[in-house]
């Protein structure tokens, strides 16, 4: 029931997204008809193409047509690929999902591991090292990190492919590029969250009744400390997607993030609208999943 209500609530959000995207792509200077016609085409062709695409009509009229089509599941045809937008989106999304999933696993494992370590060893050299790692992870441009990984692991050592898609070996470098970014933030968040929980009375109680520190950490501290970390993960998805653009570009990864950016550069209106709408949907669903996960991890949280 709760899930259904949340999904229904998403509908107005998605409609607002369609409107904002629809209008804003048309406000940016640039003429899709000219891009389609090519540089050597005369103005008559450009004008005819603009008419074919319906771009000569008022923006609001175009929007009404667009929404009428969407309700039948038709997102239009991509100007650039000349294929249905929904088909392009569904073709490209799995690669991004695959990359994001691997990156999330990497950032969770590294982030929680290091974060816990530095909380437990608070004030030590290792703790300070974590801080440096976290700052580096967040502030290193993905572009730079990706190129360094390629030069070290592909060109110099020859261990992994420099780019491409297909096997798990192709996945490692892009997933690391994306995952290390998330790991830094998660490590810092985990650390402060654990330190906070360690101050709680129930932790002192558990310790004073003679439980071993490891057991306390696992059963009492981590369970409580990780709830905010999971929220963070949901929110970070947006940052992941924007970083995925660069990662997919550098590694030649055939995902949807890159397609969105090239669609903007090509002024491929239907494709921009389709991908942004899809990514908004993914964002909403992910955050819903995170909220549901909450109640599983912490039985105190229940939704009416």
């Amino acid at each position, binding site marked *: 029931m709760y899930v259904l209500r949340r999904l229904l609530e998403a509908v107005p959000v998605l409609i607002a997204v369609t409107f904002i995207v629809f209008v804003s792509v048309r406000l940016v200077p640039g003429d899709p008809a000219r891009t389609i016609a090519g540089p050597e085409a005369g103005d008559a062709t450009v004008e005819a193409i603009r008419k074919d695409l319906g771009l000569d009509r008022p923006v609001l009229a175009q929007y009404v047509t667009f929404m009428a089509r969407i309700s039948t599941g038709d997102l239009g045809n991509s100007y650039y690929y000349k294929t249905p937008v929904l088909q392009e989106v569904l073709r490209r999304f799995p690669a991004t999902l695959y990359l994001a999933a691997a990156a999330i696993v990497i950032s969770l494992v590294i982030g929680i591991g290091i974060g816990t370590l530095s909380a437990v060893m608070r004030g030590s050299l290792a703790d300070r090292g974590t801080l440096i790692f976290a700052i580096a992870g967040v502030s290193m441009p993905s572009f730079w990190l990706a190129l360094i990984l390629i030069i070290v692991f592909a060109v110099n050592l020859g261990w992994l*492919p420099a780019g*491409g898609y297909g096997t798990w070996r192709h996945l490692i470098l892009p997933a690391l590029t994306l995952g290390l970014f998330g790991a830094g933030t998660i490590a810092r968040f985990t650390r402060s969250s654990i330190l906070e929980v360690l101050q709680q009375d129930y932790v002192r109680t558990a310790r004073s009744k003679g439980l071993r520190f490891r057991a306390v950490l696992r059963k009492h501290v981590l369970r409580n400390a990780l709830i905010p970390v999971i929220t963070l993960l949901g929110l970070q998805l947006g940052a992941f997607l924007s970083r995925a653009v660069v990662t997919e570009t550098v590694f030649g990864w055939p995902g949807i993030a890159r397609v969105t950016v090239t669609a903007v550069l090509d002024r491929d209106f239907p494709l921009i609208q389709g991908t942004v709408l899809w990514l908004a949907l993914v964002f909403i669903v992910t955050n819903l999943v995170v909220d549901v996960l909450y109640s599983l991890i912490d039985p105190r949280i229940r939704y009416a």
Partner: protein
Amino acid sequence: MKRTIAMLVALVLGFGLAQSGTLRVLLSSQLSTLEPQNTTDTDSAAVRYQIYNGLLTMTASGQPVADLAQSWNISDDGITYTFTLRDGVKFHDGTPLNAAAVVATFNRLLEPDRNTSGTAYFKPILASVEEVSELQVRFRLFEPFAPFLNTLALSTGHIMSPAAIEQFGESYGEHPIGTGPYRFVEWVRGERLVLERFDDYFDGPAPLARIEYRIVPEASTRVALLETGEADVILRVSPDEAARLADNGHIVLETTPTSRVMFLAINLTRAPFDDVRVRHALNHAVDVRGIIDALIGPDVAQADSPLAPNVFGYASIKTYEHDEQLARELLAEAGYQPGDITINLWSPNGRYVQDATLTQAVAQELEDFGIHVNIRLFGDFAEYLVTGFIEDRGDMMLVGWAPSSLEAEGGLYQILHGDRAGQFANNSGYNNPIVNRLIEEARAETTDEGRIAKYAEAQEIIMEDAPWIFLYAQPVITAHASNVHNVIILPSEQLVLRTTTKE
């Protein structure tokens, strides 16, 4: 034992699998479609040239020569072109190539409701196409258009299978059927595209068994993939990447001159740039030779014409030598000091090889001379097109123009004819009635000599009028593994792999 282990290791790591017979080509951008009549991207042309043939094709030196057509005949009035087709040519789907196929291809292009990059070439000039006999086809033009053979040799004129047109309709681009040396096998969007040798190719089977294209947008990754042996051919390598690859014994770099002229269009509608003496002064104030040596290489010539040397109709007119003294005198004659002039200089960033660097170098030269320059860079070319060409043209804009038909009509009309003044892509707003007339008259000339003479006269006037700062014709650098041979790049920047081999 040791060898077995070494082989196993090699297999696991993916080495040793370098299938000779499979050529791995890296492309930089997403392929749009493989339909010849509705696409403008260079990378999909790098695929289409292997799948399709036209009636004519271009040689590496830019001459239109017979391909599917065996011979042709042009009527004395220059209106009708009759082609005799090769006999025994088959499409990949088994359909025979005949006059009906040619008619179906061009009638599709001439459909009233079809408006594409392809129709833009043919609709204004081509009146009708008709079958004369099984292997003879006749094209009728609206009026004489001497560059018609070059136009037919464009990839837009590639011949499509009538059976496949019938079967696939508007999704032809996803099921491309041509007569070319390689046939389409598989296309995984955004990732790779596979072609396989077509054994019934009319010119005999191609040397390679397979071509695999992969899409890798980032230039440094393409270079890395070539270095690690994961790719065989990369296109449009920038000069600084080429420098990185130059010492690698396993990689060969090839530089090809293209038809793309680089120039800074001067906005003639504004003072003081409406004064020809000021424009001459600007040309003399910039050390173009020095910029070419520093950025592109000493082998590349400074522009001595608005056309590239490999374009039909090109004539060597003159270069503007670097001479600051002369530039100052010319400005003074026009009533200006360098410090009186401010130039809003616009440039794309990332569209042409080293475009922003080039613009900055020119700006530096002008600043040193005493002129104030404000640079505006456009990372987004779609924005540059509209802002620059339609809304407001700044004072100077960097443009690279590549006539894909490789002849002077394509190289002059759209950028220097008065019809186009103030529109895309005559962004100087250049309109000289004599030049206009010469370009028009050249279309109706029936002999090469006659056309060449008209174009030479036009180029002479344009060089004197100096609507641009003339720079150079852009070469392209291709890099490939040293065991790969015969990678052909046409002056129109197209990749042709018909005779490419791999040891």
